[in-house]
């Protein structure tokens, strides 16, 4: 007989089959954890062996992730390049939009993207820190990783993005904040550059170091951008 399993047609040689046997036949992973819908209704696990599947039935095998532990993504934003920041915030907002817990950890050049001051300003403690702080600038000065054309390219890119209705870096950052992505700043590079909590945008949850980061990212995937 012909039935539909997870949206695809399946031919069963038997005339009648129990749901339990169907699960075994399909080599369903973690059978003790799978939830099953038969013709749109959930079937209680205890009656799997007695539930008979007939011609034309639609069976869906579903998994429900508990606790959000498995849907977690942590991103380390190190390079601070315009294009790589766009990638990081696209991943962050996209993952958050489909239910992931997302952590964004800014370090070194990445810190430029989260400074309150968007332009070049000599911020920081001490002459050298202020010197570098000025040269690095803020979100308005982040360079394209290649073909920067002395800072013209990020402006050109933003223009092209607006024209094609693709989200700009600012829109992606706002979306990530709206979707409760966790933003963190690196303690170590902040100290070198003489930053304080007030240097960064108020949405930064915490300034932390490696140990805390490893704890926060435990159980999910981590990417270095």
């Amino acid at each position, binding site marked *: 007989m012909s039935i539909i399993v997870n949206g695809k047609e399946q031919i069963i040689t038997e005339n009648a089959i129990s749901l339990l046997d169907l699960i075994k036949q399909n080599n369903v992973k973690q059978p003790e954890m799978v939830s099953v819908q038969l013709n749109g209704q959930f079937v209680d696990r205890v009656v799997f062996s007695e539930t008979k599947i007939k011609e034309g039935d639609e069976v869906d095998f579903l998994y429900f992730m508990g606790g959000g532990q498995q849907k977690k993504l942590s991103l380390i934003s190190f390079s601070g390049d315009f294009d790589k920041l766009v990638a990081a915030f*696209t991943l962050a*907002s*996209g993952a*958050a*939009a*489909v*239910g992931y817990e997302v952590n964004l950890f800014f370090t070194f050049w990445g810190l430029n993207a989260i400074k309150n001051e968007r332009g070049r300003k000599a911020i920081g403690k001490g002459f050298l820190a202020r010197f570098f702080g000025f040269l690095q600038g803020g979100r308005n000065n982040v360079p394209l990783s290649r073909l920067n054309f002395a800072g013209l390219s990020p402006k050109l890119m933003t223009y092209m993005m607006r024209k*094609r*209705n*693709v*989200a700009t870096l600012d*829109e*992606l950052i706002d*979306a990530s904040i*709206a*979707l409760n992505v966790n933003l963190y700043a690196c303690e170590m590079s902040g100290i070198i550059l003489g930053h304080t909590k007030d240097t960064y945008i108020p949405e930064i949850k915490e300034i932390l170091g490696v140990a805390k980061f490893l704890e926060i990212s435990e159980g999910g995937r981590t990417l270095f951008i």
Partner: protein
Amino acid sequence: MATIQLDVTREHCPMTFVKTKIALSKLNSGDQLEVLVTEGEPLENIPKSSTEQGYNVLGISHVIDNIHKIIIGK
């Protein structure tokens, strides 16, 4: 019971489902969101991820050309 309308037909990834998710999170119990999407990735992904996050997809209908309407309730 309010109905919110959202048009993401001119958006591209990830903004299609990002804007939908932001709109969904503002719904109160009993409210509905009517979102206009284009065929392809948004039409496939938005119902799926909405269901996964506990919302109810109340209907999907074809509007015109490649534009479809998805009705999601809380």
